[in-house]
């Protein structure tokens, strides 16, 4: 009996081509899109990245955090501190901010993991508030009122405004692609097997030899690393930072959860689909003011009731589609 394992299927072969074409088109956006569109696209990439990271944390590892704004804000503040106080080039400061946030997340995780389920969720929010209050005490960065990057730092990215916007756009795209690529790579690895098993059944996972606690720990730290880098880039683009914007539970967690849940939690495609839906809603309904948020809430409720696995979950269950070649399909010959 010959045994072979295939990762791709017809839908993922099409999917990979679509993703590749989209990447080329988006990488060329500075030549075909106007400035406002570039900014919007960069924002979309940031949300794809944040939602993909949250999906890994909550959808796979079962760590439902409502406090990921802690790492968005931490990454952003580290970037400002490194650039303004230590004179480090802002683009170099992004990975340093990610790495430092990851180091900080190690003891934070040790504390947070003493809490389970709902308590973990609430605890993560409390932790983010602690981070926000600490940030407002940093007088070197103008504490509670916030600060702006000095012109010299901004100019160091690129001398012309147009080139600066292009550079930040490309970095935002590269960052989202790198994070998605890392997640695909992870899910195809041995740890992906474990993570998917944990997603489906924690008791089953532990009973089959998976060290669930250790894997959750590693995922928490890795997600902190990625989230902080995304946060650093978001605020490098904004140029201005304050504790309330950097540690906003609405912007960096509520919307991210909305995106992941309507797109399809526990599936890699879910956050991408969710981000597209979210931005379509936002761009078409933004003029409605508070009603826009009511509509978002209604959409979330309808999706949760009618399609608990999200939009992509519905599609994947119905057609067996996968965009990324993740499954392990057994092909037996000589039978």
């Amino acid at each position, binding site marked *: 009996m010959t*045994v072979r394992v295939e990762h791709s299927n017809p839908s993922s072969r099409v999917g990979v081509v679509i993703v590749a074409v989209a990447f080329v088109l988006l990488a060329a956006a500075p030549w075909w899109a106007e400035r406002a569109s570039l900014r919007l696209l960069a924002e979309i990439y940031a949300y794809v990245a944040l939602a993909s990271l949250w999906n890994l944390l909550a959808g796979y590892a079962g760590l439902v955090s409502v406090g990921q704004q802690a790492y968005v804000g931490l990454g952003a503040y580290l970037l400002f501190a490194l650039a303004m106080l230590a004179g480090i080039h802002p683009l170099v400061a992004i990975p340093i901010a990610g790495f430092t946030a990851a180091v900080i997340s190690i003891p934070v995780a040790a504390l947070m993991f003493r809490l389970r389920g709902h308590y973990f969720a609430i605890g993560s929010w409390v932790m983010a508030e602690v981070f926000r209050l600490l940030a407002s005490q940093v007088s070197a960065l103008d504490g509670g009122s916030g600060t702006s990057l000095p012109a010299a730092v901004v100019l160091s990215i690129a001398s012309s405004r147009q080139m600066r916007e292009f550079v930040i756009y490309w970095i935002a795209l590269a960052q989202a692609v790198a994070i998605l690529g890392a997640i695909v790579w992870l899910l195809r690895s041995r740890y992906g097997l*474990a993570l998917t*098993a944990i997603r*489906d059944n924690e*008791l089953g996972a532990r009973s089959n*030899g998976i060290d669930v606690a250790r894997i959750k720990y590693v995922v928490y730290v890795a997600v902190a690393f990625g989230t902080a880098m995304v946060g650093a880039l978001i605020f490098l683009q904004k140029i201005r930072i304050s504790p309330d914007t950097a540690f906003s539970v609405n912007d960096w967690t509520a919307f991210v959860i909305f995106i992941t849940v309507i797109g399809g939690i526990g599936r890699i495609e879910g956050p991408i689909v969710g981000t597209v839906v979210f931005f379509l809603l936002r761009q078409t309904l933004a003029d409605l003011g508070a009603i826009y948020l009511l509509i978002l809430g209604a959409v979330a409720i309808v999706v949760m009731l009618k399609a608990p696995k999200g939009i992509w979950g519905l599609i994947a269950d119905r057609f067996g589609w996968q965009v990324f070649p993740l499954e392990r399909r057994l092909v037996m010959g000589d039978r």
Partner: protein
Amino acid sequence: MTMPILSLQKISKRFGAVVVADGIDLTLGEGEALGVIGPNGAGKTTLFGIITGTVAPDSGRVLFAGEDVTRAAPERRCRMGIARSFQIPQPFGGMTVFENLVVAAAFGGGKRERDVYPRCAELLDQCGLADKANRRAGSLALLDRKRLELARALATEPRVLLLDEVAGGLIEHETAALVALVKDVRARGVSIIWIEHIVHALIAAVDRLVVLHGGALIAEGLPAEVIRRPQVAEIYMGIEADA
């Protein structure tokens, strides 16, 4: 009896006022197949929880291969060689049947992923799941879920295999095939504890039978002999009545 691979020493556990294990002493010999019967609520499944580490006993010790594992985590016990099938199947529902086995073989068996593919394919064949290898485990009917429980437990390459009501719902020739499979597993040196309500299947496969009632062992011995004891027959009839 041969050298014990597993022994429980004075294991007690209560959930509130309910005593589910009352000072249980039990040993399993290397290569032995032990059957466990008892009415619902007798503490059979809890016993498996205590052996595998998902339930912490209030007192007593669990020894595996001479080592005290009373405080060891379930994943560690699995990697040491204690595997279990759950009475209520616990599949990885979003993964395929094949992937379920790969997880167990790679982590429980402590092997590299690609090295386990042939063995997993073989197990699917043995457990009657070959044609469903690439189906999502969550889409399986109950019977196939039970087969998957067994196949996945075997994929971890256990030294001790704990089976929790794997025969329920099987028709006659399927039961015979299951008994043959269990005997085959045992012939390869795996020690077995099997909880089962389908007593004739159990008697055909085990060397020794214990009866659990109210968290205590009330009978122990050769299967055919234990089952004839009046006290046991009464409980056994009781099981048949409410099964």
